[in-house]
Every structure is written in structure tokens, then in C-alpha cells.
């Protein structure tokens, strides 16, 4: 990563976190409609993977991939208004939280059913290659999501078709309240990839540079016609499944252990100590972040709700 990219990564990491902190405020003020899902402690994965993409690549972020939206050019206001169900949100209030996308930006909106994005992104990669386009489709899956039928069918199809596709598995130890040990009999998600002869590697998901480098390798592999790639990012979900979940079931020591590995702290430290950035340079980014959050939070607050006419509520199911 170039110096500029490192600074950019720092910016996105902080923006991701600050955005969610602002969302938390909104949540406490009852301004968030529905649940609030955090990516606290996992930000390096979304930011690192999305930064590794080329502009022509496509990504399908899930609920904890706020960072991928940001890297892809969405603003905090897009997330704020989505979470607040405002008329100014990307879906104009029709769908919630990270359920938005835009094919112009190569961002695919997820559905809630876990695993479903995998076959779809196989199709994105495959369909692009058929048209001679140099494009990789990247998406994410949680440890829990790897138990779904779509995970298997999607990866198998990808491997047979050698589809240019990268799957980033965020192994954050829990699926809602279910620890990985009750979700599967293996300990490393990469073992899943053996069923498809898909090359796979384990990466420290809390190390942004490692995530970035591994994703570059993965994309390079997929781009070169050798088929899909599987990346397991070891990490930890530092909050409940959503904010309404106090996550009592998570051992305190586990959280303690992972708090020490906070991806932003670690990255900042390396920037300062290894890469010779100054505190001022980082503070400058912090200020950019704070300013944008403030501006966009205000925008979101000022934004109206959809009026709620029947036509707004019903129309647009079909093109015609």
C-alpha cells in the first residue's frame, strides 16, 4: 500500500467507526428504526477488502460491511438515512440498514437470507467474464452463514465455472448467540473450501494491511482466470448481534483478549511507528471524519420521512 492508501485506509477505518458511533447515538435517541448492527472490531475487513478492489469490480456488502459502502463512495448520510428510514435514503425508505446498492457503483444490495449473495456474485463474475469484462465479484459471509445450502451450491458452481469471485468469510466467533463450535465441527472456515478445491487462506482480520494484501492476492487469482478464492478473516464481534442483544453469552475474557487487538488501534500504531506518519497527519484525518459525520448526521436528521402515499408504498414492483 502506498502512503496515500495507508492514510486513506486510516480515514475509512475511522469513518466506519465514527459512523457507527453516531448511529449509536441516534439509536439511543430512538431515531434508528429497527435494530442497529455494528461492525465494531471488524472494520479492517470491510475497509481492507473493499480498498483492494479495482473500480470495475463489484461488491455485495452484508450488514457488517459498512466500510465497504464507504470505500465504494457512499457517504455516511446514506447509512444514516437508511437506518433512520428517511425519504432521502438510497432506497427512499423502502428497505433498511445496509439493504441498498447501485449497479453503477458495482454495489449489490443484500437480502437477509444468509448465503444468498454467494451464487449471485458468482453470476456477477461469470456474467462479466462472458462479456469480456475484467471484473471480479466479491462478497462476504459470516461463520454462521457458511452452514447454508447457498454457500455450498454457490462455491461449487464458482469452482466448476472458474468464476472470478472472491468470498471473504468473517470468522467473528459467533452467529447471533451461537459459537462456531455449535455451528460446525471444524475450527477453520478454510476447511470448507477444500470441498471445492478453492484456494483458501487464513488472514488476521484485525490487521488491515494483511487483509488488504490477501485480498489483492485473491483478486489477482480470480482475475487471472483461475477461479474463485476464499479468504477467512479471523476476528471477533465486539458487540451483540445487534444493539438490543447484550451478548451475555460471550465470555468476558474473550472480549478482553480481542479488545487488545483492536484493528484501528493496531493500524494507527503501525502508521506512527513503522510508517513514519505523524500524529498531526492522523488528526487531520480524524477531523475530516468528524466534519463529515457531523454534516451528514445533520443532513439525516433534517431529512423528511417518506410521505407514505399508497403509490409510494406499492409501486415499482415491475418495470411496467
Amino acid at each position, binding site marked *: 500500500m502506498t502512503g496515500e492508501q495507508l492514510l486513506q485506509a486510516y480515514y475509512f477505518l475511522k469513518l466506519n467507526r465514527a459512523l457507527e458511533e453516531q448511529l449509536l447515538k441516534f439509536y439511543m435517541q430512538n431515531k434508528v428504526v*429497527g435494530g442497529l448492527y455494528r461492525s465494531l472490531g471488524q472494520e479492517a475487513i470491510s475497509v481492507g477488502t473493499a480498498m483492494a478492489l479495482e473500480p470495475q469490480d463489484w461488491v455485495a456488502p452484508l450488514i457488517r460491511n459498512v466500510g465497504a459502502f464507504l470505500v465504494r463512495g457512499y457517504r455516511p448520510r446514506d447509512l444514516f438515512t437508511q437506518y433512520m428510514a428517511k425519504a432521502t435514503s438510497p432506497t427512499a425508505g423502502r428497505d433498511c440498514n445496509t439493504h441498498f446498492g447501485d449497479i453503477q457503483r458495482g454495489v449489490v444490495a443484500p437480502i437477509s437470507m444468509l448465503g444468498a449473495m454467494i451464487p449471485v456474485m458468482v453470476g456477477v463474475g461469470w456474467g462479466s467474464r462472458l462479456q469480456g469484462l475484467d471484473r471480479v465479484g466479491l462478497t462476504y459471509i459470516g461463520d454462521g452463514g457458511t452452514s447454508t445450502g447457498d454457500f455450498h451450491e454457490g462455491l461449487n458452481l464458482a469452482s466448476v465455472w472458474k468464476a472470478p469471485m472472491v468470498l471473504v468469510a468473517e470468522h467473528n466467533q459467533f452467529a447471533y448467540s451461537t459459537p462456531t463450535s455449535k455451528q460446525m465441527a471444524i475450527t477453520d472456515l478454510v476447511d470448507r473450501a477444500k470441498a471445492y478445491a478453492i484456494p483458501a487462506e487464513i488472514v488476521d482480520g484485525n490487521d488491515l494491511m494483511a487483509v488488504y494484501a490477501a485480498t489483492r492476492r485473491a483478486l489477482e487469482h480470480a482475475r487471472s482466470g483461475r477461479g474463485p478464492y476464499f479468504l477467512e478473516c479471523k476476528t471477533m464481534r465486539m458487540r451483540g448481534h445487534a444493539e438490543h442483544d447484550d451478548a451475555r453469552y460471550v465470555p468476558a475474557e474473550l472480549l478482553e483478549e480481542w479488545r487488545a487487538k483492536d484493528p484501528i488501534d493496531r493500524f494507527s500504531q503501525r502508521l506512527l511507528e513503522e510508517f513514519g506518519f505523524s500524529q498531526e497527519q492522523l488528526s487531520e484525518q480524524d477531523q475530516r471524519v468528524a466534519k463529515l459525520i457531523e454534516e451528514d448526521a445533520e443532513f439525516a436528521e433534517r431529512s423528511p420521512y417518506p410521505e407514505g402515499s399508497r403509490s409510494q408504498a406499492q409501486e415499482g414492483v415491475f418495470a411496467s
Partner: protein
Amino acid sequence: MITMLEAIRQALRDELAGDDKVVLLGQDIGDFGGAFKVTQGLVEEFGEQRVADTPISESAMIGAAIGAAMVGLKPVVEMQFIDFLACGYNQLVNFAGKMRYRWGQGASLVVRGPCGAGVSGSAFHSQSPESTYLCVPGIKVVYPSTAEDAYGLLRSAIQDPDPVLFLEHKFLYRRIKGEVGHQPIPLGKAALRRRGEKLSVITYGASSHTAQEVAEQFGDQVEVIDLRCLQPLDEACLFESVKRTNKVLLYHEAQKTLGMGAELSARISEQLFEYLDGPVVRVAAPDSPVPFSPNLEKAWLPGAEQLAEACRRLLAY
């Protein structure tokens, strides 16, 4: 007085206690007590064997329940949201629903979970899937609207020899309360919620409450029947009502096209044509996904005003 959610838990507890063949399976239903806390405390009482957490795999969950039913258990599968049943569709419809007809072996199992809109759950946490499982053979569909019914009908559903889809409207979970008995309520009996002389409103689920509120505005004109079970259907009860009032309005939260109202309308037109003094009217949700934003969702839901207006028009017909 306990909430509908507590009534469901009580039914599960009483079945677990009374019949050691009853087992629960679902995601996060053990220690965690389930996403809505319906099963809270049950694993402590009955153990991990009988209140079993599963991986995220709806098809395997339903398949495993079918197998367990074959060896004599009475499994109750929780869907975290009923929307996710879409991922176990094939097992329920093609395996469970058709086996008795095909080779004489039925599957006594219940699939239950929260359905319905009104809590800003958006497209994938708000669906009303009853038509989907009524338009294929072999699945019973139960949809209680009160705590009492939830308790009694769930107990019957668990003991029923056939696959039962038990729909729990999440809006009602903690919003309604009732005095819950100790007895099962047989499947297939509708409830007359309010007597009226001029118009029968046939409804079920959360809509039953709206219908009763609206009916009040019309004195003794509007009758409200709560189906409680969509399959088996209490045709006798609703036919009797229509024969008496000569006008009928079908009201539900599911989509209009091929919603339960379509089937009821068709049966009524076919069998009670000579009794009808007006068109058979449907008030239901539009044929679109459920929108997220509260205003949109409110506009989307077939609410009290829409129902009242339809009643007025039909009464005046």
C-alpha cells in the same frame, strides 16, 4: 393475564412436560431463548437434547424434524423469522406435505415462528406466507390472534399427526394478553368474535383485532369471524354467517392476489351465490414487498380506515 408470547412458551412447556416425544429445534433457542425469547428458560428445564440449537440451515432443520417425526418424536421447529422458511421450502412442501399421501407415513411436526408486518421489519422480516403453504397439499396452517388461542391451538398443533405451520404475528407477541387455560383447542374451528346482522367480516391473525375495532363503529351490523385455522377451514361457520348476513368482506394482512381472501371469495361465490346481496369484497395488502419506513408500511398495511370505508360501501350496496 399473560402475553401471547408467554402463552406460546407455556404451550411449549406444557407439551414438553406432558409428552417426552416433544422436542424443539431452532437457531439460538437454547441458552439464548430465541430471537424473540419465546423459548426462554426451556433449555434449563428440559435440557439441550430436547431444546436443541441448530446451525443456520433451515432446510436441514426441517428435514431433520421430518426424520425425527418418522421415528416417533414430535418436533417443533422455530424459524427465527418465518421469512427464512423460504430456505426450507422444499423439505416442508415436497417431503413433509406429500409423504402421507404417497406412502402412508405422516410427519407430526410443527414449524412455527414470527410473521407479519407493522414493526418496520421490511421485506425479509415481515412476510405473511400463508398462501404459499395453503396452495400446496399437505400442510395445515394455524394462525391465532389471541393468547388463549395461541396456547390452545399450539398444543393441538404439536399433537396433530400432520405437518402444521403455526404462524405467530410478531406485532401481537407482547401487545395482547389473555387468561390462558390448560386445554388444547381443536384445530379447524373458527371463532365468532362479534355478532352482526348485515355484513360478515372474515379475518384472522392481527387483522382480527382491527376488524373488531372497526366493527364496533357499526353497532350490530358487522359480524366478525376469526378463522384461527386456515387449513383445516371451518367452512360451516363462515357459510352460516354469510347465509345470515348476505354480505361478506374478506380481510387480511397478506397480499391480495391469491391471498386467503381469494379462496374464501371463490368458495362463497360458488356455494352461496343465491345468498349474496352484494359483491364479495376483499381488503388486503398490495402485491408488493413490505416497505420499511413506518409511513410507507402504514400506507401499505390494510388498516382500520380502509376496512371501515369498505364496510360502509358494502353496507350501503
